[in-house]
């Protein structure tokens, strides 16, 4: 492939979310790493630059909000997609007035997230090119 692959990090403490998203995004041509614990994800972010971060908000230990702040400190231009429960959607939007590319409410279907990721990709490729 002409362009190098974009790297995606997925963080959700529900393994099912990672298991479902990874193959679908790999087939779209991304390199995908998944994590169920935020501190492990944070370690990964310290070693690798991810172009796109997809994370849940409510998690045991460090929650998604803290994780995002830390990750953004390390790589400010990583694009972020937040997945969150339908009920907490408004609060989530409120808390991240900026710095988040888009929000997706759970449950979501695969094509929904594929579309958002394609939009992020277009944005990243656009700014790079």
């Amino acid at each position, binding site marked *: 492939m002409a362009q190098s692959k974009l790297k995606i990090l997925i963080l959700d403490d529900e393994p099912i*979310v990672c298991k479902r998203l990874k193959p679908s995004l790999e087939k779209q041509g991304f390199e995908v790493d998944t994590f169920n614990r935020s501190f492990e994800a944070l370690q990964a972010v310290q070693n690798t630059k991810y172009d796109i971060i997809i994370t849940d908000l409510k998690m045991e230990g460090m929650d998604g909000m803290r994780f995002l702040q830390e990750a953004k400190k390390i790589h400010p231009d990583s694009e972020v997609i937040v997945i969150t429960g339908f009920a907490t959607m408004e609060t989530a939007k409120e808390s991240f007035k900026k710095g988040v590319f888009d929000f997706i409410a*759970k449950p979501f279907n695969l094509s929904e997230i594929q579309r958002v990721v394609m939009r992020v990709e277009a944005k990243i490729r656009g700014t790079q090119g």
Partner: protein
Amino acid sequence: MFTGLQNLWHRLFKPPQQLVAFPEVFERFQDLLHDHQKIMEIIADLGEKSGGDYVFDRKYLLDTVNELHSLLLRLVKGLNLISGNRYVELYAALDRILLPLEAELRGRLSLTEEMPYVVGLKEAPLDLPELVGGKAGVLMEISQRLHVPVPDGFVVTTRAYRRFLDHNQVEGRIHSLLASWISEKLDTMQVSRQIQYAVLAGVMPQEVAREIRREAQAQPFWAVRSSAFGEDGELSFAGLHESILQVPATGLLEAVKKVWASLYSPGALSYRRQVGLLGEEAAMAVLCQEVVASRASGVVHSLDLEAPESDGLVVYAHPGLGRTVMEGRANLDRFLVERRQPFPIRTKNIAVKESYRRVAPGGGEEEVSVDPEEQERPALAEEDIQTLARWSRTLERYFKRPQETEWALDEKGRIWILQSRRLTPPQPSEAPDICESCSAYPVLIKDQGAVAHAGVGAGPVFVVSSDQDLGRFPEGAVLVTRYTAPWLAPVVPKAVAMVAERGSPAGHLATIAREFRVPTLVGVENAVALLPAGGDITVDTHNRLIYQGRVAELLRYELIQSTAFEDAPEFRLLRRLLKRIAPLNLTDPQDSNFTPEGCRSVHDVIRFVHEKAVQELMDLPRFLKRFKEARVCTLISEVPIGLKIWDLGGGIDPQARGTQITVAQIRSLPLQAIWAGVTLPGVWSTEPVAVDFKGLMASLTRTLGDGMSAPDYLGINLAVVTETYLNLHLKLGYHYNLIDVRMDPDPHHNHIYFRFVGGVTDLTRRSRRARLLADVLSRYHFKVDIKGDLVLARILHLPQEEMRRRLIALGQLIGFTRQLDMQLKSDEDVGHFLEVFVQRLEPAGDPQSPQGGKDGTEQVENPHPGR
């Protein structure tokens, strides 16, 4: 959550109150319809989520069940308010249905008193994995759903296990021993020995022993295997629990206890601790099967582990009994077979067999040596190899992962499947780039349609456009169709994937696709034209792509994913919840089972509540009392049935004065539409006798007026209306016709319920008429149930114009049925009259769409997932 239900029950159960005024009843009824609708949407939504296209977590399931719970409480309360508390038993029904749901969500076994101790493999219900355990569950799916033969037998259920523990009072002891183990006061061996001793020393309760002995008589020897709850899911307990072969019938009770005790073997205990299952309830069912005195036996690997990318499967075979095969001691024939129809054999490696084991004449096994000239004879004939190859692929397709399947060939030449489990292929060290591999294949269709069941499947395109095509549908083809009609159902299990031009993920085809786990896209425009008949295609619903050709890399990529979504705990849980939510068992209000006690699912409860609420609304003696305060008009029309209209707001012209109104003054949209149909010229006369509708009406009313034993409320025809609502109650002659319609601008609120019963002639003719009605209604895509002469039909969620079209047809149907039962003299007449009627309907009907719906509409009703 459930505390307080009892209080509520008592609070509500006061002496029958005075009649609630109709406007209030109507208001409650509207609320009730709204909640009913909401619950129907949740049921459809859950069904759709079970198709694998959505990503959801356990929290979603918890929230949804909670929401269902509050809606149901409100619904039941609403009905009791309308009816003066005549249905308080519904609260008990709610408990009965909701408590197990809660138990499921908490991961608890919910076994009830009605569940059997022992159940036959062929009869056992597929929807109770907690009762029969994992291994038996898999075999039941193989035999009952996939129709691949497994040796007959029975299951000693987890309920029997529970009963055994209770009877011997060992549960407490098990718990305290496990506690000592966790706190490391005892080591694994000590705990295991003590628990196993307690179980083995237990006495089998009489009622359980009796049932086992009764079943045991069928055979002299049995194969006895563990079937633990939770086994064969994502977790593999392979080899940790006991299996005992060649058990004499008289030794079954002891063997069952041994298998139960193996739940606490050192290995099983350590494994459960390791995977965090110790806190969960352990329960063991025991599978007892006929012993196949096998002439040959072996295993099939649905994927060649030595060369996963070569698209081959491997059949291993050896003469005699299977134990030597499984223990790896035998020299095996190895047949490498193409993974595709017609399963040609690529290579045969025939082993030299010096001896084999067989069943000894007096029971037990014996070793037999093979004559030198026989030693290189293949253990299996070619056609048997192909049969096994086909089954192996069927199993893989259904279970979604490569399968290792044990088989046996008996003395009569029949092949049996003994077990099937997941085969884990080695992970390729250097995984090829899946995106790049796929991009080498031309894409035929992209981003079209909706996912009914998720997955990847490849095969030749076979277009089905009529039921004549069904018989020719080849195993392993991709079903491509314009419609999503129920008559497609028989070929669904044979399909590797399905693509339909119409339909929705909440429709019938989607439900069947989920039951058989067939990857399915619906609503793919032009699929029939775009997909080459006979050519290979690959359907990938995850990315909504259809490729030309077999994308072998993608098929392999799917197979080696860690878990098929169908096996993820969330999906398994959802399917178990759905079994208690979605099936509709109460279809016929005339059935003696149509009671609060008869409700077995959430769907049953809302069906019951809805029916009773409508009845309440239509209960004429009450209605007449309620009438007193209402303003009721009589409709003046060329169709002289004296229709009384009760307007609850916006249903008739506000300028109308007096007690009579004209057709032009009707403002109620549904009544306008129906009346347009009733008064259409020329639809009433049916061959061979042209009958003038007015005359017919008059003659019938006259006849009935002459004192024939007419039912009650004769001649009272009522319409309760608002601008968008109609509840029409017709008693014309002996027919009893009830139509309830909501016709909002928002299609989601809309429904037509149609009920028709009774008639002047004998039951046979009335049934004939019922079938005719059903045929006509089906052409309008109603979901129709008939029982005897009762016709129940409904359709949901159509836009106003579509509703109108159907209401006009119903109007025509009302007139048409007036005389039918007198004229339908033979079954052939049904077809004839259908023709006549449909011809007459043409201006309003849709002659071009035989089954599927030209408009692509499909009802969001009756999801029935995975029944």
